[in-house]
């Protein structure tokens, strides 16, 4: 007698089951990666003695309740802010705390503006009615000013250190990238040097 073959399992509903799972995962998961502007808040303990900072080393940006910008006591449009901040940071009229002058600055060396990128502070003030969108726009332009300067510096010193045609943002990206083949310790040294030459000094205050 011929051997009877085992009956085939009906797999018609497999697709339905798989679809059910697929839809579950589509609904309960997210794909977007979080991104944003990173900041560090100042610690709350107030130091007893006020550090004296010369007025010319502070670049004040005030955003009022109507989202208007007041930069160094003058009205300004958002699109002009980045250039003004770059000019202020890159001024380099005098020396830093160690008495070194800024030999990489290309600013006007105006004595009424900042002494050294190391001393230059951007103070961002806002009022309670300021809109969050405008605040982020301003933050973005100020971070952009720092990044512009750092990019320029990276293109200057990069080739001598073996990193040709790479701006600061690409350097940072490569340093984090596991697939990038290259000397990472050397790259990190360059990044740290640039960070030290143009430190990000941005203070945020809210006027009550």
């Amino acid at each position: 007698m011929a051997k009877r073959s085992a009956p085939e399992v009906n797999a018609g509903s497999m697709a339905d089951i798989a679809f059910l799972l697929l839809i579950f995962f589509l609904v309960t998961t997210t794909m977007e990666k979080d991104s944003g502007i990173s900041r560090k808040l100042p610690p709350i303990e107030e130091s007893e003695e006020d550090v004296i900072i010369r007025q010319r080393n502070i670049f004040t940006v005030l955003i009022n309740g109507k989202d208007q910008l007041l930069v160094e006591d003058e009205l300004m449009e958002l699109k002009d802010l980045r250039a003004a901040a770059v000019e202020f940071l890159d001024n380099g009229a005098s020396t830093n705390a160690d008495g070194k002058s800024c030999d990489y600055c290309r600013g006007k060396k105006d004595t009424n503006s900042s002494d050294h990128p190391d001393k230059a502070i951007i103070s961002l003030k806002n009022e309670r009615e300021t809109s969050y969108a405008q605040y982020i726009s301003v933050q973005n332009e100020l971070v952009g000013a720092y990044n512009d300067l750092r990019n320029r510096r990276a293109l200057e010193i990069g080739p001598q250190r073996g990193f040709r045609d790479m701006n600061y943002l690409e350097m940072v990206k490569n340093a984090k990238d596991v697939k990038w083949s290259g000397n990472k310790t050397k790259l990190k040294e360059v990044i740290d040097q640039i960070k030290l030459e143009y430190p990000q000094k941005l203070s945020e205050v809210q006027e009550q």
Partner: protein
Amino acid sequence: MSKFKKKKGGDLPAVNTASLPDIVFMLLFFFMVATVMRENTLKIENKLPSADQIEKLEKKDLVMYIYAGKPSSNYKKQMGTEARIQLNDNFAEVNEIAAFINAERATKREELIPFLTTSLKVDKDANMGLVGDIKQELRKVNALKINYAAIQGDVSKNKQ
């Protein structure tokens, strides 16, 4: 004569669907691998502002989320139209942030606590008063690393 008999009727042969489960499983595995579980259900409007100098947040497990914005249409009746804070799945007051941060910290290993970042997901129509209050609260509990969540785009999009 029956050799060339017309085929019966015009009915089409059934499409073979044997490979359908394979295709769907492939999609399923793709989504399982490429996505992460949603953490909170938003009860507020949350349109993030645009910015082009943004950094990506690595390590999703070391991020705490604080949402803020106007209550979405379902909750307008109970909560009003003023911008509110949302922690986890519920509306919260400013003074509940400290407890939230401490609870989040308790779930993480101690050596990772200094690396915790707070991501502020604030609606672009909110005003800075609320954000300032959140920042002040975060300073009180010494959660100083923050990230203003934004999406990639030109800042001119913020002006609408």
